[in-house]
């Protein structure tokens, strides 16, 4: 019974490291594409960061978007965007930040509510004033920055600085490409997206650390093996784990994406991308980069975690 099926057979010898230039080229293009998209199209900031009003309403029958649009644009509230949300009875209304202070925004909410009347169900009303929007923007950038620095320091402390360099480059790669993806598809970039970016950072580094751990172990074990070959072996040895964990995580994320409701869908989308790119970057970026940072062999390892020569085996 219960005969396991091995997705990745043992003893693979995929040529990840020797083929690294292809991956580097791909990643370089990905970075350029992300940055171009970011600077030309820019991010579609949600009200969390830009300030403004967001309302999710549900109408009795299928929503009559043109009527809602003309009702609301008659209010003189500036840029109003109307969009179906999840189902055909649900409508997402976005209203630009109003001129003036916070009170002006409150007036706008009341105006919309009285224009749409009480027949519609107000499922969600969110308002972020200019002050809070600026603060959230700063806090978000700060959180991502601090998380990167702390991860960098941790890797430096647990491994060596060369590993930290590789990890942080791979991590930045993942974060930039995720932000680039959101710029490209113009999905709303909001608090949940920042949460996704930070979680991706955690996930990606987790993946990288696992491969690094194996690499360090092999560095001590095979003192004379050529680095490139040793790296490639380490990746192949951990390949089954890398794939399995990515798959279980992706399965969970797909469940959120398809069944978790419209509010979580974008979050799940960012995470799905992040898991894929994070897995890719651990294998194709973080490890091959170590070839270029003058990595020392295991003898100088400052942390002194050594592989036991003679394992004591439990007597059961």
């Amino acid at each position, binding site marked *: 019974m219960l005969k396991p099926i091995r997705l990745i057979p043992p003893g693979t010898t995929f040529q990840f490291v020797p083929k690294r230039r292809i991956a580097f080229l791909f990643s370089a293009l990905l970075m350029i594409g992300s940055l171009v998209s970011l600077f030309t199209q820019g991010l579609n900031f949600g009200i969390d960061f830009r300030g403004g009003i967001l309302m999710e309403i549900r109408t009795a029958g299928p929503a009559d978007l043109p009527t809602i649009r003309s009702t609301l644009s008659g209010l003189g509230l500036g840029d109003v965007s109307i969009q179906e949300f999840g189902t055909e009875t649900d409508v997402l209304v976005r209203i630009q930040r109003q001129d003036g202070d916070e009170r002006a925004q409150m007036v706008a909410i009341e105006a919309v509510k009285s224009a749409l009347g009480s027949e519609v169900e107000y499922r969600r009303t969110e308002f972020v004033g200019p002050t809070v929007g600026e603060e959230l923007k700063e806090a978000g950038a700060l959180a991502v920055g601090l998380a990167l620095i702390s991860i960098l320091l941790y890797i430096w402390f647990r491994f060596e600085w060369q590993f930290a360099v590789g990890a942080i480059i791979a991590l930045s790669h993942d974060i930039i490409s995720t932000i680039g993806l959101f710029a490209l598809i113009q999905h709303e970039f909001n608090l949940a997206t*920042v949460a996704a970016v930070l979680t991706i950072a955690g996930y990606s*580094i*987790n993946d990288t*650390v696992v491969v690094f751990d194996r690499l360090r172990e092999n560095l001590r074990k095979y003192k004379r093996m050529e680095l490139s070959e040793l790296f490639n072996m380490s990746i192949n040895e951990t390949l089954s784990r890398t794939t399995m964990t990515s798959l279980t*995580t992706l399965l969970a*994320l797909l469940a959120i994406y398809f069944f978790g409701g419209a509010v979580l869908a974008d979050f799940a989308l960012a995470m799905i991308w992040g898991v894929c790119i994070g897995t890719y970057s651990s294998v194709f970026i973080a490890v091959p980069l170590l070839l270029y940072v003058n990595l020392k062999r295991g003898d100088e390892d400052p942390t002194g975690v050594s592989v036991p020569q003679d394992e004591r085996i439990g007597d059961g």
Partner: protein
Amino acid sequence: MLQFSPWKTTLVLLVCLLGLIYAAPNLLTADYSRDVPDFAPGKKVSLGLDLQGGSYLLLKVELDVVIEERLESIVSGIRGALNNAKPDKIGYRNIGVSGDAARVTIRDPEDFDRARGILEALDPQAVVTVDDAGEAVITLTEQAAQDARLAAVQQSIEIVRRRIDETGVREPTIQRQGDDRILLQLPGVDDPERIKALLGQTAKMTFRLVDITASLANALAGRVPPGAQLLEASNPGPGQQSHYVVKRKIEVSGENLIDAQPSFQDNQPVVSFRFDTVGGKRFGKTTAENVGRPFAIVLDSKVISVPVIQQPILGGSGIITGSFTVASANDLALLLRAGALPAPLVVLEERTVGPGLGADSIEAGKVASIIGLILVAVFMVVAYGLFGLFANIALVFNILLIVGALSALQATLTLPGIAGIVLTVGMAMDANVLIFERIREEVLIGRSPMSAIDAGYKRALTTIIDSNLTTLFAAIFLYSFGSGPIKGFAVTLAIGILTSMFTAVMVTRLMVVTWLRRRRPSAVPI
């Protein structure tokens, strides 16, 4: 790694049992939590406003107004003191508040020293400087300004609490945040417009005399007599004045009110009120001295009614007529009962979720969790067979522990928090995967089952700790950065990392070890 001492086994089982006990109340439909103290089992996970529906409001207390008012009162103190100075009055000009100081210019250089003495005696918490040209600048000390702000925020919280309580919202949370902010969480409120309207008024009520000597036309043209003020009428009916010239002197203020209730007079909604003893006496005196003259009831610098005093009102109670509706009479009575805010409040951020969306989100979260769980569980059995089954049992305990921890800590479960749990379901498998893969490798190099499993656990452990700690860092920064719902995500993620490490390393291992001892297998089915 394969020895489990009896106490260790007991400990692992105990933790799992605790998780079960703390998580159990969430399976019951009835809510017993009100009878149970914090930290004791029996509490359910508390749902965030995005799941149970409700309104989150971040308010700012406009503290500049507090300082300005304090300076205004210093200015009126200066007027009185200089006018009544002994032996003769001191001449002055250019009196008023500008910037963060009260300013007055003394006319006669001979009076400078005398004026300084008088000004310094006015407010012990103010600093007075008089320059050679006779311009006196009176500022509050930094300490005094700070105290005034702090007091204003605290008083605002108290007034907000009273007003919210009066509206009948159940279990509101009212917290101070930062220096000048108040965070309001109102479960079950899906249309906070009324509450925002109630909080949007400071509700400072004053009873003052109308300046009958002044001409309204002159005042409207900008010539307001000294000691008087031009005020707008609130909501004037047809044929009523739009403005009134009202004396600055406050006869009685809203602080002296002890009760206010909506009622009816001639089928019109009105508000009846009652003063405390001091207020009643003052009101009696004023009305006795001014029979036949109009007086103004002023709310937040708007005149709501201008009755003519028919007879002295000595009982300390009266009614306010005005163009009220039943609802507005109700609200005014409420505001007067709850008291005035020391400074205006503005809404900086609002997030309101209706009960429909909340219920839908819970439902979607449940469905996503269950489907995610099944997918992952099936996958694990397919990939690791019996060991996958062990991992799945551990996963169930993992979820129990997360829910139990959330219930025990009374952390708030939000929609992103549910996403965090589902994500943990996927990521929790990582520790198991690391161990199982390692065991496979050890089996491949020809170790005995016992030895392979032992080595697998031993070698995977540092990797598990290293990789999970980094994710934990991300969760901690997320917590420190995020507002409400995102904090919920960070909390479940962090708890999930800890519990999944525990379940993978301890619970799965306990099962594996027990199986090893019972079966003594010749090969590892992995």
